[in-house]
């Protein structure tokens, strides 16, 4: 079943503040084979915060997404500044676009990631592909 057309343009409540600790950044860097040097967090680190917002979208019963049918199609980040240890980040997700192609919903999301003062840090654009039940995998 396709997701409701009214989803387009909808903005979800901001995620709870996420505190960027040195330990978290070190773990993330180590998982991808990098060594954290005490400076900026790895460029894709903000996905941790954006992922929280995307999970809230996908688990919202009013949206009608079946989690196991979702594939990450595309990702783009634009940065105002790098993420640093000590940041307290929240993500506010808006569904920018929604279209149906071949029985799948193509959901374009934009998560605005801001710091504790509400200043922009990064915008994470994710395209989620929600495959319909009859769509061959």
């Amino acid at each position: 079943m396709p997701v409701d057309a009214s989803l387009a343009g909808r903005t979800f409540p901001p995620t709870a503040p996420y505190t960027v600790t040195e330990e978290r950044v070190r773990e993330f860097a180590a998982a991808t084979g990098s060594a954290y040097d005490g400076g900026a967090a790895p460029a894709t680190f903000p996905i941790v915060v954006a992922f929280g917002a995307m999970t809230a979208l996908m688990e919202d019963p009013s949206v009608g997404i079946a989690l196991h049918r979702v594939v990450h199609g595309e990702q783009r980040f634009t940065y105002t500044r790098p993420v640093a240890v000590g940041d307290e980040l929240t993500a506010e997700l808006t569904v920018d676009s929604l279209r149906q192609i071949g029985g799948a919903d193509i959901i374009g999301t934009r998560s605005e990631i801001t710091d504790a003062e509400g200043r922009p840090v990064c915008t994470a654009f994710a395209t989620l592909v929600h495959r319909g039940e009859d769509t061959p995998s």
Partner: protein
Amino acid sequence: MNTGDVLPEQTYTVTRADLVRYAGASGDRNPIHWSERVATSVGLPGVIAHGMYTMALAARALDTWADGPGKVRELSCKFTKPVVVPDDDTGVTVRVKGTVKQVTDAGTHVALEVTCGDEKVLGQPKAVLVA
């Protein structure tokens, strides 16, 4: 970096252990990234790396070329082919290449190529670094 520069290829190994660490570090615990049973049940050839894991490797290459993290102003890609990670100690190799397309006031535009075996696993991966 100057327009036309071909940046040195970076080679990374990805193992199942890396995916488990990344699942914990990123919060993405989707079982297709650690369970063969679940991965094959949804039609995948086996356990696959998180698309964001592969994108993180592209970012790691950018950090190497830019002499440190914090220089990326834009980063984007499509997730076109899965990186299948075998259940062994050897893992799989991901290669990241880059070419400087142009240098403007907005920054240094880099076109990437990310491959596993003979296949490009990311579609149109590109980045803008601070000039």
